[in-house]
């Protein structure tokens, strides 16, 4: 079995007791401390960059994040962008935003409400104002508040001139004008100059949080290496923004978030989809096999395909199929041929793949299906997050069709869970569904890099013909009930498989009623026995008590944050988080029985709740459900807990 402690997100620190104690200390919110240079110290801050989808907000956010990482803070990010590639400029649907929380202590969420909003135009201000804390800081590009933009973003009057923003600290910065002035010596067209204003804003933010510019300067130099005039202009805008903030005293004061006490080691920033791609390649390497990834482009899963396509020198073969069904079909074909067959998609793609996934169940082939869940039903909200596919992947196929279902809980956890998906598929000869989420896919956090030599190999055996022995394609391993993975091309093992009901042992077509029941039972038992091959569920906090929060997938961060906040208020609540949903960890029933109530927060209308109530009818389970395309806020968790206690 894979040592999962390696991959737990807590491995930023270790999952040990000492660390937990430290969390408690760190989360006691400290009052801002004035330091000797007039810089105020804060324990955590949430910043949101918002602008038109063409304003480069994701890039700005990424740069801010990278520098935050280099300066030793823990962080979590939340990119939130529209499905439209370039919605009309200045309109509400065109707003793209990027939120980051960075902190002195360990965190797993991008923060609930933001402390600071950088708004590049009236639409960005309008869309994001509801998400700003009272007394929060707004930095706006006042140049963009002209009549035309105000009309397009449905402001009745200019909010910079009326009472709309009276509860906030508003810093009006003529970003376009200042950038233009700063770049007047640069040989650029006016439109190009205007595009540098995000770096001006970023420079201001770097000053505000006492950050260095080096990393972004390096990045700009590399990024625009072929256009030296753009390098110079962007760096000039960045520095001008920094100096403007420094000299003009436009901003109230400078803040500093002390370094986070993280476990020693080498770290990088990673998003869920990146971690998934890297995890798959690592798993293929651990198994000594070719990785085949058959996929049809779909938001928010596509960048797994993009990432993998770049790694041909790792023996990765990507196949952009003609449709979702073909993506599943090629993946089954690749697994039949002995490769690690993986397909990736989102909810609508799962619908289309379902029949073929049933074939993989019947043929008992090891395929991995990555579902990066998004808003539904139908096309829904493609760029927004949900957890609404759980019941679909559990039951959305014809016939009795059990598959393994696992779910990562943080962006970096996608790495370890991708390896787990491959390990379980190969060891148990079964399809495995990896339920990721749009939120995890795009959000980034620091990842303490594992030692490759510590990762256990994935053992794979393919049968060969034995003299005088008949080969049975549906013979089973005594312990796991896995059937042999005999590869086409192996002398003496010629056999036929398919979607028709299989006779035990031979795999021949069979309509025998008793045999059919037996095979149904065997396939179900095979999946259930995986409970012996996965870690038991751990409870953070008291092992017995009034209330357990049981989460799964990407709600981990919000639940963690909620519990920390409650703990700060003297309310102790326990937390267990499911990485494995089918089968459940074998101690789950015992864990649940130790609590009077179990709260299950989910970004759906109660999928896990239904499964838990069905499997453990004695448990008093209640839900916290939200389907708004957004992750939970920690505050929503705390509010529900208080209702229940």
């Amino acid at each position, binding site marked *: 079995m894979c040592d999962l402690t390696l991959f737990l997100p807590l491995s930023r620190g270790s999952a040990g007791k000492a660390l937990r104690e430290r969390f408690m200390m760190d989360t006691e919110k400290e009052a801002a401390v004035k330091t000797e240079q007039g810089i105020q110290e804060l324990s955590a801050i949430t910043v949101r960059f918002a602008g038109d989808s063409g304003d480069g907000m994701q890039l700005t956010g990424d740069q801010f994040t990278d520098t935050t990482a280099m300066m030793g803070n823990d962080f979590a990010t939340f990119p939130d962008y529209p499905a439209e590639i370039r919605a009309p400029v200045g309109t509400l649907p065109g707003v793209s935003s990027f939120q980051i929380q960075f902190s002195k202590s360990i965190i797993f969420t991008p923060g609930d409400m933001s402390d600071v909003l950088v708004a590049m135009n009236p639409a960005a201000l309008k869309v994001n104002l509801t998400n700003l804390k009272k007394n929060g800081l707004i930095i706006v590009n006042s140049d963009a508040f002209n009549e035309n933009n105000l009309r397009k973003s449905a402001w009745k009057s200019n909010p910079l001139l009326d009472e709309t923003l009276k509860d906030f600290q508003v810093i009006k910065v003529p970003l376009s004008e200042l950038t233009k002035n700063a770049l007047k010596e640069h040989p650029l067209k006016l439109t190009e100059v205007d595009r540098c204003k995000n770096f001006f804003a970023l420079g201001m933010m770097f000053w505000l949080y006492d950050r260095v510019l080096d990393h972004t300067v390096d990045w700009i130099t590399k990024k625009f290496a072929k256009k030296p005039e753009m390098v110079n202009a962007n760096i000039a805008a960045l520095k001008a923004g920094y100096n403007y903030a420094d000299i003009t005293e436009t901003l109230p004061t400078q803040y500093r978030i002390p370094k986070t006490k993280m476990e020693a*080691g*080498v*770290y990088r920033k990673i998003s869920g989809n990146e971690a998934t791609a890297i995890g798959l390649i690592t798993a293929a390497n651990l198994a000594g096999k070719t990785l*085949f990834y058959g996929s049809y482009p779909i938001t928010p899963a596509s960048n797994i395909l993009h990432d993998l396509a770049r790694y041909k020198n790792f023996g990765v073969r990507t196949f952009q199929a003609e449709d979702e069904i073909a993506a599943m079909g090629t993946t089954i*074909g690749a697994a039949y041929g002995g490769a690690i067959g993986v397909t990736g998609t989102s909810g609508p793609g799962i619908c289309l793949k379902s029949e073929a996934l049933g074939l993989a169940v019947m043929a008992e082939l090891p395929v991995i299906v990555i579902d990066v869940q998004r808003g539904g039903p139908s096309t829904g909200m493609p760029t927004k997050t949900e957890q609404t596919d759980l019941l679909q992947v559990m039951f959305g196929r014809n016939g009795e069709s059990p598959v393994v279902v696992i779910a990562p809980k943080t962006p970096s956890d996608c790495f370890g869970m991708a390896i787990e998906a491959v390990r379980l598929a190969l060891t148990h000869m079964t399809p495995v569904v990896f339920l990721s989420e749009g939120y995890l896919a795009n959000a980034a956090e620091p990842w303490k890099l594992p030692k*490759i030599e510590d990762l256990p190999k994935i053992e794979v055996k393919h049968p060969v013909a034995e003299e005088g022995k008949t080969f049975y394609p549906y013979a089973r391993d005594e312990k796991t009930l896995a059937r042999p993975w005999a590869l086409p091309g192996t002398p003496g093992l010629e056999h036929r498989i*398919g979607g028709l009901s299989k006779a035990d042992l031979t795999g021949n077509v069979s309509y025998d009623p008793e045999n059919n029941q037996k095979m149904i039972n065997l396939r179900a038992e095979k999946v259930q026995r995986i409970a012996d091959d996965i870690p038991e569920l751990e409870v953070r906090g008291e092992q017995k008590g009034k209330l357990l929060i049981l989460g799964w997938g990407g709600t981990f961060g919000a639940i963690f944050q909620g519990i920390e906040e409650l703990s700060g208020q003297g309310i102790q609540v326990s937390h267990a988080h499911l990485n494995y949903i089918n089968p459940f960890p074998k101690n789950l029933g015992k864990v649940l029985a130790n609590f009077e109530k179990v709260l299950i927060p989910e970004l759906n209308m109660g999928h896990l709740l239904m499964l838990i109530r069905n499997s453990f009818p004695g448990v008093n389970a209640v839900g916290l459900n939200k389907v708004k395309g957004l992750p939970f806020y920690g505050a929503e968790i705390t509010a529900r807990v208080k209702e229940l206690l």
Partner: protein
Amino acid sequence: MSPDTLVPEPLPYQKADFESNQEVRWCPGCGDYSILATMQRTLAKFKRPKHEYAFISGIGCSSRFPYYMNTYGFHTIHGRAPTIASGLRCVNPNLSIWVITGDGDGLSIGGNHLIHCMRRNINLNILLVNNEIYGLTKGQYSPTSKVGTVTKSTPMGSVDYPINALCIAIASEATFIARTLDSDPNHMSMVLERAEKHKGVSFVEILQNCVIFNDKVHAPVVGRENREDRMIYMEHGKPLLFGKNKSKAIKLNGLRAEVADANDAEAKEHLLIHNEKDATPNYAYLLTQMTYPEMPVPFGVFRDIERPTYDELVLDQEKAALETRGKGDLKKLIYGSNTWEVKA
């Protein structure tokens, strides 16, 4: 010539080597029996051992085919066989892979996959068994049924215009395209052999008789009494001759094919000479437009051209990536471009 050379080298395999132990369960008189036997007989002619073959099928009567071949076989789901075969090919360049499909499986529910499989030129042999009817679901009209076909689902006759399998193959730029028939095993064997030898996708339409639901649908063309005048067996580099004593041929009139007297000295100069190697698809498409009852129907190889295969190109890219970047270093991959260290 020494007497030794007169004795042919014994073939390593017999037809029986390719027969599985499963009882064949097609209807008595079904054209699939002949296709199965011809396939087994043809494979026995090659030196490739049986474990190097994989037969992949979808759903339909003909898709039971893999069960009866003592090779590797995968009876998949409706219309999707080309996708499973493509995935298999991408990870195993050595197998001989055959896709067995039908007019419903390949041209209706699986039409999309068929098109894309062919335009990619994946090295597969695709046999489309065309009987112009849904057999396994007990006799509904299929996408190749002629207008007016009366079935259970079209009691007043079908109104949708049929699709021409070979036109789809040409439009998809398949590199090997052929037509044969269940009742001429020798011709079928020749076509199968050529399909196997072709590098890239080979698409073969086999006109097959469904004795239960669409009996004799092809008889007006291939029936014993009609075939001389209504079938053309094409040969590369030769005129398209047919009729009694091969007295008729095809000539071009503008952009149309038309029947000509093969012996007319004047017409002779304008006769169409069969060219499988034509790089453009126009000529092959013209041949597919020769349909009963207006024209005699061509059989044999319509097109046999070379184009790099998808699977080759994939391996080439992999090789190039290895040459320029070296074998992937897992540590570098995990570390990425930006890391920072937290000291104890």
